[in-house]
């Protein structure tokens, strides 16, 4: 292995030439295939698949070129290059291609196939009452995390205390998280909460609610979906908060005790502020999970009644899968992606500032 400065110029030229040649070949194949698919030339491949092989060959040439032109540094780059190229192929390119698809009119049943339509899908989305309704629902769903947080904190405090069978309860409380949301939907939403024979429905009848139809009115359906989702994910927040509580320095708590603080004062003056970084991490991760809410909605209510429980993802699912409206569905997904990125970025900034100010 040679340091860069000891590599002969001829070898460097050869390396650069190899990379250039490979790049030109890849570009030529890409352009040629594009022209063929646009029916502007008569030769090309039936599918785009061979382009992957050219991409791999280009990657190999790029790696060889790195070694030839940069010596030891090139070898170091070889460790990273496969992962970078893989990420480009599997993440970056599909995302960019997704943006392109979002700007096409592409209904799988359409006779004209895929046609570029610029921002038409975006303008359509702005006037789409279903998308707007789903966005509002998402805000409500996200707001419900504050209640989930309180419950999770309470449970974490309980499981952190010296209670009987503490380990058993820790495992039991984690069980919902281990279940697939689809299983939760069937077990609870469609069985326990079933209007006729569901034990929960019977319990509520016994408690005086004559018609315990959990999913028949917009309000009760929304609350029921939130409860189902909360039941699944509260353990996730709880376990993070429990870890935070257990990592909390004992001496601070003891100092508070020595200073004569009661339990309430200790919680608000010591525990809660010290737990803020962990709390914010738990809440932000929970928000990210919540923004993906779909499976429970699709399985239990199909977004109903009248869109009351629809989430963005469940709406996109219907638009994309049931209606084969690929272009518009992709636009909805891409806009949602951008909204999530903006929202989470702002949230992280605010959270950091908040934690800094408080602590």
């Amino acid at each position, binding site marked *: 292995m040679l340091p860069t400065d000891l590599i002969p110029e001829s070898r460097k030229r050869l390396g650069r030439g190899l990379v250039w040649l490979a790049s030109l070949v890849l570009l030529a194949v890409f352009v040629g295939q594009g022209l063929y698919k646009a029916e502007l030339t008569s030769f090309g491949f039936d599918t785009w698949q061979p382009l992957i092989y050219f991409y791999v060959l280009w990657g190999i040439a790029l790696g060889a070129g790195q070694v030839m032109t940069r010596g030891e540094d090139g070898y170091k780059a070889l460790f990273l290059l496969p992962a970078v190229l893989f990420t480009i192929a599997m993440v970056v390119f599909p995302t960019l291609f997704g943006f392109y698809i979002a700007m096409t009119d592409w209904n799988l049943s359409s006779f004209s196939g895929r046609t570029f339509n610029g921002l038409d899908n975006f303008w359509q989305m702005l006037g789409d009452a279903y998308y707007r309704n789903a966005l509002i629902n998402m805000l409500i769903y996200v707001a419900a995390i504050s209640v989930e947080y309180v419950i999770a904190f309470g449970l974490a405090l309980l499981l952190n205390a010296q209670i009987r069978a503490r380990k058993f309860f820790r495992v039991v409380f984690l069980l919902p998280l281990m279940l697939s949301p689809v299983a939760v939907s069937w077990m609870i939403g469609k069985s326990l909460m079933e*209007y006729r024979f569901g034990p929960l429905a019977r319990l509520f009848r016994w408690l005086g609610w004559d018609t315990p139809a959990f999913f028949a009115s917009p309000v009760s359906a929304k609350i029921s979906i939130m409860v189902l989702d909360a039941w699944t994910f509260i353990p996730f927040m709880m376990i993070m908060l429990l870890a935070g509580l257990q990592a909390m320095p004992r001496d601070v708590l003891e100092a508070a005790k020595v200073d004569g603080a009661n339990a309430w004062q200790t919680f608000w003056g010591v525990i809660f502020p010290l737990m803020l970084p962990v709390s914010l991490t738990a809440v932000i991760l929970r928000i990210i999970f919540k923004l993906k809410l779909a499976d429970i909605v699709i399985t239990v209510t199909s977004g109903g*009644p*009248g869109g009351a429980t629809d989430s963005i993802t469940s709406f996109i699912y219907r638009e994309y899968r049931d209606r084969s409206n690929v272009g518009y569905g992709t636009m909805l997904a891409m806009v949602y992606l951008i909204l999530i990125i903006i929202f989470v970025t702002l949230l992280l900034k605010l959270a950091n500032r908040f934690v800094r100010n408080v602590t």
Partner: protein
Amino acid sequence: MKVGLYNQLVRAGATRRDVLRGAASLAALSAASGAGLGALTGAASAQDDLRMQILKIPGVGMGQPTDADFQKVGELCLGATKANVAEGEFAGVELTFMGLNNQNLHNVLFRGFLKPWEAYTGAKINWIDLAQADYNARLQQSIATGTVDFDLIEMGAPFEGDVCGKGLTSEMPDWVKTQIDMDDVVGYLQPPVGTWDGKTYRVTVDGDAHNFNYRTDVFSDADLAEAWKSHDDKAGLETWGVPTTWQQVQATTKFLKGKQVAGQDAFGYLDAPKAWGGFGFYFLGSRASAYAKHPDDKAWLFDADTMKPRINNPAWVRAIQDVIDALPSEPADQLNADPNTTAFQQFLAGTGSMVVWWGDVGSNVKTNDSSVVGDVTGFSILPGSDDVYNSKTGAWETLASGPNYAPNCAYLGWGVYVMARVDSDEKKKKAAWSAAAHLGGKDLSIWTAMYPSGFQPYRNSHFNIPEWVAAGYDEAFITSYLNSEKDSYNHPNAAVEPRIPGIFQYYSVAEDELAKIFAGQMSAQEGADNIAAAWEKITDQIGRENQIKLYKASLGM
């Protein structure tokens, strides 16, 4: 035969004596009838012997058929293939068959049926098995991306617009029509079903239609009959009994609210307002067909000349309004009920006294573990209507013949189609069509109708009740059930599925709007107008001119 119906007989423990008794009945009937069954037995044909022979494999009540049984049936039914194909004629040919594997049926049976065919012809078949939920997406993606990687496909007629309409299928040769005896297929599955622009593409292997399932105990209850006498809105049902029109369904549904039968709360009709991946729209269709399908007009969902939706015309709006009006009299959680709930969690469990469904309710009432209505369920075609809307004149009409009936032939059953990619190779094309014809053969079909296969009867010859009784079926039950199917299939004013591209997109978007209407967010007319606007958008997106052409073709216009 649906699995449930077969299991019913298995559980009922039909014995060899039952079978023999049934056979004796058949012989007696045959002897007595020179014009009817006599024609079947007169020649004492080898075909009759063959049918009796295959129906003993493994024998009704003798347990679930196995792959060995499928192969035996396939082997015994090879006669028609042998008449058209020489032994080893397709040596070296490889075919790919894409189909379903629901409940271990469909492709699983096809494999067994085709093994003897492969051995005889020398062809080899590769299989692509799909779950129902993956089927639509896989098919649409294959079409859209031009990657049709199969030679034969098991497909429902509603997809014909997407597939046949795009020239992806091979036209059926005449020898296949003869081999499968296409004339025997029930009326509603005859062309235009399975055809586009006059060309035939489909080997039918199944039939589908919505029928009307009702509770005989509720509609013969003496207390209710007494109370009905003083009820104001009878909608023409002067004596308490099974409603025969939707007006009567509405009246009885409202009447039953708050009543009890045998100590249980009674409910009338069960609507399915919750979206169900597009399939829920069929159930509004069943409520609307008698209002919207005029005997003089083949179209009922769109204007055939313009593809202008009819969903917001007075007929459909009345059907939507019926649901709105009936919901307060239905169980409290009805708004969250999809068709799966109405049939299997409500009707079979004893809630509700009327439900519309495919034949599955009939095949489950006595076999499903949760069913409590096995002995109190009756079947008929869909209710009619006192008047019918004429889209051409824009007026409601009362027919001189009485109520208008229009059974909703929803989904039209499964068929086997050969893809156009085999057309360039004559040997492969003949092999593919031979395989399809074997699966849709007349004799083999009676076996699939009687045993668990996922397929319902679809030929006139399937409704020869003595043949079922001879095979071990209970006569009264099978007669009632088969008649409801047969009368739906053969009805002269049957409402036929519009087989146009993207039909489930129309249904799916309608479900979203209907959910809003039923949740009280808008009126029936306003919601129907929204559906019509959304449908217009879909039509424009898919291509209006082509849709018009294909819609007309699908209606045989």
